[in-house]
């Protein structure tokens, strides 16, 4: 009964989405308030229906109802409750349902909180949003219905893929989807603006909060995915330039560019056409990401199933939306009036440079990700484009961008003073140079490592310089500086945090890649091995039983300079339901660095293959992403940008009668 209820709710949601895609749009053209008002009701009702549908699926999983095909395929009665819950989106059908759930959440949020958006724009936005929703409802109902029943209910499920039985997977997909799908709102706003043929600075202000929310979630989602890969896959890598990673990274790059160009549009009424194009491109890349991951053209942990129908269906959605929106853009964009002028050396100019580098870097990732697919389709040759390609294309471009980052916030709008800004950045440059010298001379590391540290220091200190300058920290007395700091717009703090986060991540990347060391050895009980300053002793093995697995754990005592500092217990788990296993690495955190031990196979004579890594500063990689997200959140809390923020209080105060 429950699965049928969920299925039925989904069909109703489709019907509502179809109404919502036509009626409010027609109402907006006719300026009919009643017809436009339909959008709010349908968006909220749609959200409620999808929520019911999702809840129905969750309850099927939690109650282990194996008569439902997807539950049978991906769950097991002995699995811990948390994983029964997360296996809802640990498969194709469920994750698509999560996709539309988030889509309808965003639609509902616009309907509920977009009170200050002009009625016609809001109605059009919700209509466009409903087109996307309708397309995906049809996709789910036609090709990936999560509620399909099996004729004979099996007694036990097939279990979730063991490497997905992890807490990281409880967080990573919803976060990533919030990011991907969040950009649908920006897309809807862009398409609505094109339909209306009118766009101004206020548009940028309405769009910015949605873009920020999506960007924050995407940042955290990508970081979470990278962290998950790092500790689960057992080889200690945190980024592999795998197509599925790129699929999430490309929207992030385009979305970051969008955040910056929307800023120019909001403040200076310039770059309008470009911002619209970026909004369309960002969501298009999210759709391409969904296509790459879900269609099965790539082999990876994300390609749950390879049903060609689904791939073709998503491809059709892709062509329809990307092609349609770009055609609309080509047709309507010339109608949009161009705005403010600016000199090349100015805040606007710096943001244009930022956009240029971000989009071009995104394009190189795009080429590297899709070239193998295109080549195979055209010539049949199978190739793989690996990490070296991305290191040599994305790397240099991003380095140039990072060098420019500290200049941006210090330049004035309209016309900036490059010489003055360079002088103000002197401290940052000196610190960067000291960093380079220390790394090169004292540590004797290659130029690349030194350069990386220098750039990271420049970005971090440069971002701090902006705050110091604005508060007059060294010039004014301390209490005044503190008061000024409190009075700074939150968005200024947001920018500083986001840029600092970037530097912190870079520092982590450089530390891990340039200072890291690893050792792969075969060990027996009592054997000792050392790596950097650490000595590891193989104490012994033990067998343990988990709820739905058995594990072989190896105990190591770790010593530094002869002093024991802890015990590490990596293990190998085997899951009988799927006759497969996972490697559980043991991690020991020392400051921002980690020691990483994972197990390989066991040989007949009792020796165990062991991988030991020392990963200096590795935690900074993800910490930086968290700092970036905090920056985004600070910017989001800026009064000026708050969703549905009332008009400034000053205006109202002026109207109050004198007492």
């Amino acid at each position, binding site marked *: 009964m429950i699965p049928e209820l969920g299925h039925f709710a989904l069909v109703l949601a489709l019907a509502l989405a179809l109404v919502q895609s036509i009626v409010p749009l027609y109402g907006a053209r006719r300026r009919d308030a009643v017809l436009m008002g339909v959008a709010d009701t349908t968006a909220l009702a749609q959200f409620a229906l999808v929520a019911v549908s999702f809840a129905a699926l969750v309850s099927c999983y939690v109650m282990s109802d194996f008569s439902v095909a997807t539950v049978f395929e991906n769950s097991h009665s002995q699995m811990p409750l948390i994983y029964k819950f997360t296996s809802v989106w640990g498969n194709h059908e469920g994750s698509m349902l999560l996709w539309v759930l988030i889509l309808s959440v965003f639609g509902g949020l616009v309907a509920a909180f977009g009170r200050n958006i002009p009625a016609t724009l809001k109605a059009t936005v919700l209509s466009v949003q409903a087109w996307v929703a309708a397309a995906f409802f049809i996709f789910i109902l036609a090709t990936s219905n999560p509620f399909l029943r099996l*004729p004979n209910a099996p007694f036990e499920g097939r279990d979730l893929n063991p490497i997905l039985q992890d807490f990281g997977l409880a967080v990573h997909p919803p976060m990533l989807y919030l990011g991907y799908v969040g950009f649908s709102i920006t897309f809807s706003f862009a398409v609505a603006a094109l339909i209306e043929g009118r766009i101004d600075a206020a548009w940028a202000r309405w769009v910015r909060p949605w873009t920020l929310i999506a960007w924050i979630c995407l940042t955290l989602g990508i970081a979470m995915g990278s962290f998950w890969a790092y500790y689960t896959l057992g080889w200690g890598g945190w980024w592999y330039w795998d197509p599925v990673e790129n699929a999430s990274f490309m929207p992030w790059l385009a979305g970051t560019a969008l955040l910056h160009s929307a800023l120019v549009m909001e403040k200076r009424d310039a770059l309008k056409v470009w911002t619209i194009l970026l909004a369309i491109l960002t969501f298009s890349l999210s759709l391409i990401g969904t296509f790459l991951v879900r269609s099965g053209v790539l082999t990876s942990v994300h390609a749950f199933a390879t049903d060609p129908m689904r791939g073709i269906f998503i491809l059709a959605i892709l062509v329809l939306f990307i092609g349609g929106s770009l055609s609309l853009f080509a047709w309507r964009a010339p109608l949009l009036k161009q705005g403010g002028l600016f000199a090349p050396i100015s805040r606007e100019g710096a943001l244009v440079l930022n956009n240029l580098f971000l989009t071009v870097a995104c394009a190189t990732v795009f080429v590297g990700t899709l070239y193998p697919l295109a080549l195979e389709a055209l010539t049949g040759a199978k190739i793989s484009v690996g990490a070296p390609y991305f290191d*040599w294309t994305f790397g240099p471009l991003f380095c140039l961008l990072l060098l420019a980052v500290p200049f941006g916030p210090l330049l004035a709008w309209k016309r900036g003073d490059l010489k003055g800004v360079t002088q103000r950045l002197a401290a940052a440059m000196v610190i960067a140079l000291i960093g380079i010298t220390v790394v090169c001379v004292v540590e004797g590391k290659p130029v690349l490592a030194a350069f990386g540290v220098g750039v990271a220091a420049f970005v971090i200190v440069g971002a701090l310089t902006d705050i110091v300058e604005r508060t007059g920290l060294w010039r004014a007395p301390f209490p005044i500086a503190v008061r000024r700091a409190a009075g700074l717009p939150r968005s200024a703090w947001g920018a500083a945090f986001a840029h600092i986060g970037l530097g912190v991540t870079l520092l982590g990347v450089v530390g891990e890649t340039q200072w890291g060391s690893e050792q792969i050895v075969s060990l027996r009980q009592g054997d000792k091995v050392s790596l950097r300053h650490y000595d590891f002793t193989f104490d012994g093995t033990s067998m343990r039983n988990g709820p739905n697995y058995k594990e072989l754990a190896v105990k190591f005592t770790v010593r530094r300079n002869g002093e024991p500092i802890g015990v590490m217990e990596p293990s190998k788990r085997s899951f009988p339901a799927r006759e497969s296993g996972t490697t559980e690495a043991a991690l020991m955190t020392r400051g921002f660095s980690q020691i990483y031990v994972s197990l390989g196979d066991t040989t007949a004579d009792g020796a165990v293959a062991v991988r030991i890594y020392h990963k200096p500063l590795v935690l900074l990689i993800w910490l930086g992403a968290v700092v970036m997200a905090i920056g985004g959140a600070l910017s989001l809390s800026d009064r000026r940008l708050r969703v549905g923020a009332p008009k400034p209080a000053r205006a109202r105060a002026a109207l109050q009668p004198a007492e």
Partner: protein
Amino acid sequence: MTRKQRRLALISAGVAVLGLAAGLVLSALKDSIVFFNSPTDLTEKHVAPGTRVRLGGLVVPGSIVKGKDLNVRFEVTDGNKAVAVSYQGILPDLFREGQGVVSEGVVDPSGAFKADTVLAKHDERYMPKEVADALKKQGHWVDEYSAKTGSATGNKP
């Protein structure tokens, strides 16, 4: 600066960055592309020693020999030809006899394949796509495999 000059500055900056990117992309694509080969391709095409290639196929049952210092040798087949692969390191969790595997490395002058990376699947139910295609080409795509992938898609009659 006039409006024209400003536009010119903007466009030339754009062209410069795009040119840089295009140069980087082309040079990187030339150097870092790795071609995929089936064991048949590898034996028939005479890949020059030292070229990086990917080799995909099924691990021949009984061919895995584990030596000292984590050295391991195994054979990979597409049903037609088999190629010996040597590798030093830890094999992935899902590396088994009779299962699909993709390894990356170079052919040494003796004709043996020296792998530095061995990739198995993330999930025991799916075959790497390249391997499946190579098997189909040789006509060794047994129904058993498609039955496995069939059940994985969740398509019930």
